[in-house]
């Protein structure tokens, strides 16, 4: 658990983070969102003490981070940044194994761990372990960046706009992968972005920041249905609020089990937003719902989307 208590960060006369308090439970996927300069990155950098707060306290599992030795603190926190920061003179294997190397793992174990993580991030270990970063696409580099952050199996992962430089397709793929990694390994993730769709897709809780202050911390549904003020309302977007709400729920939660439907099939894990989009595109008011193997599960009607 990460506890941020009345934390303020001043740079000279300007205040980057202003009396911010936030508790992030273990296993939570917390997304900090806000406009540029809202102080989001500073919050992350104070958690691993790359920035030292001017006042207030940050505790991880009850331990004050400013009292822990820096190296020890940072080696148990994964850190992923938008600019990736792979070491260009090291191979992928050595980059991924950077923290294990610092921790003094045996070479064979480090390499095996690097291979395991690359495979988990859909990079064939045989093809990538001995390549250099500049030989990789940006998307592949960021996969390596994530693998590097995960190498020593930290409980906490800090991600600072990790997908900001990626094209939309790579971005979505990596969002799905990081969501999967977080779920299956019970990591606590603190993720900074300025993209509300990304926040809604990933977060179990969203913390909205504006001018250094925490405006609202709530689940995606709460944020959409009860925005705290106009700033949050603008951030979530007034025009497509309904679509965003639909994006939060999966088809399987609203479908009519067992009912046959003539329409084109939709995966049960798809969002209601996708269901609506398909109905509009296909000009129909019902769709068949199938499981991952394509077996029919039921149907979803246009009316089901309107139920609250």
């Amino acid at each position, binding site marked *: 658990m990460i506890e941020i208590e009345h934390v303020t960060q001043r740079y000279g006369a300007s205040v980057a983070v202003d009396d911010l308090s936030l508790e992030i439970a273990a296993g939570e996927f917390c997304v900090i969102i806000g406009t540029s300069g809202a102080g989001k990155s500073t919050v992350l950098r104070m958690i*691993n003490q*790359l920035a030292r707060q001017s006042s207030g306290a940050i505790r991880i599992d009850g331990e004050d981070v400013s009292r822990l030795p*820096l*190296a*020890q*603190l*940072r*080696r148990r926190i994964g*850190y992923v*940044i938008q*600019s*990736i*920061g*792979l*070491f*260009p*003179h090291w191979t992928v294997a050595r980059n991924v194994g*950077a*923290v294990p190397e*610092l921790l003094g793992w045996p070479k064979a174990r480090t390499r095996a761990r690097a291979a395991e993580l690359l495979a988990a991030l859909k990079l064939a270990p045989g093809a990538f372990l001995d390549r*250099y*970063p*500049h*030989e*990789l696409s*940006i998307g592949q*580099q960021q996969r390596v960046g994530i693998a*590097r*952050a995960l190498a020593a199996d930290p409980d906490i992962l*800090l991600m600072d706009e990790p997908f900001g430089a990626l094209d939309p397709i790579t971005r979505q793929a990596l969002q799905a992968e990081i969501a999967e990694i977080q779920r299956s390994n019970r990591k606590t993730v603190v993720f900074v972005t300025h993209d509300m769709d990304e926040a809604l897709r990933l977060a179990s809780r969203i913390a909205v920041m504006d001018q250094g202050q925490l405006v609202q911390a709530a689940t995606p549904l709460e944020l959409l249905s009860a925005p705290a003020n106009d700033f949050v309302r603008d951030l979530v977007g007034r025009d497509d609020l309904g679509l965003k709400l639909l994006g939060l729920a999966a088809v399987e939660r609203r479908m009519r089990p067992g009912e046959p439907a003539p329409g084109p099939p939709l995966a049960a894990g798809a969002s209601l937003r996708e269901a609506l989009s398909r109905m509009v595109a296909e000009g129909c008011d019902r769709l068949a719902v199938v499981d991952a193997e394509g077996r029919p599960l039921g149907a979803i009607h246009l009316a089901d989307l309107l139920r609250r």
Partner: protein
Amino acid sequence: MTMRLRDPLLWASLALTALAALMPHSKPLFAALFPGLARPLFELDGCADLLAGHLLLVGASSGAAILLGVGAAIFVTRPAGAEFRSLVATIVAIGQTFPPVAVLAVAVPVIGFGFYPAFIALLLYGLLPIVDTAIAGLDAVPATLRDAARGMGMSEGAILRKVELPLAAPAIIGGIRISVIINVGTATVASTVGARTLGLPIIIGLDAANPAYILQGAIPVALLAIVLDLAFGRLLTALQRRRHSRPGG
């Protein structure tokens, strides 16, 4: 094998060795080239001895300049030394502005004739390219890499050793290359204060209007500069081939 036979570094080194070994036997050649000269061959010191003295002076002064220069560059690129950055740059630039001859002239009354005034003059003269390129090389390491390294719990010393110096190495070695080559040439002047270098036959040759002496000093010096330049070029290519120093983009 054919690659090695075409290697210019190999041939230049062989030529220099042969020159040093054969120079004492070259009297008939220079006598034929310069028939008017009473003493066509410089015989006060052997060419090999002078070459060794030359290398010793350049090696010692460049070695000291590397330690001092790279050390200073590392210091002023740390937060603790940032304040001294412009001071160091100024001092080093002044060191480069004084002609070595002037430094020699000032040094001799203080520490006397011989190796040491030459050593100091060359050390000062060789600092600028090393400090300049080392600072530029260290500055060119992207801040995001330092950030990533720090974020994973690397100590400042480890960041310097494992990230900054390896990435700055091509620039640093480039600066050392320039500095050493300059000093090979400048070391000839050091003979005016009694350092035994290949400059000795040149100075005496100039004084005595003996072009043969001048050639017997100048040719080995030129060849030595070529050998060292090729060797540094080789080192840089090896570095570049082994690592891929362009930040991925």
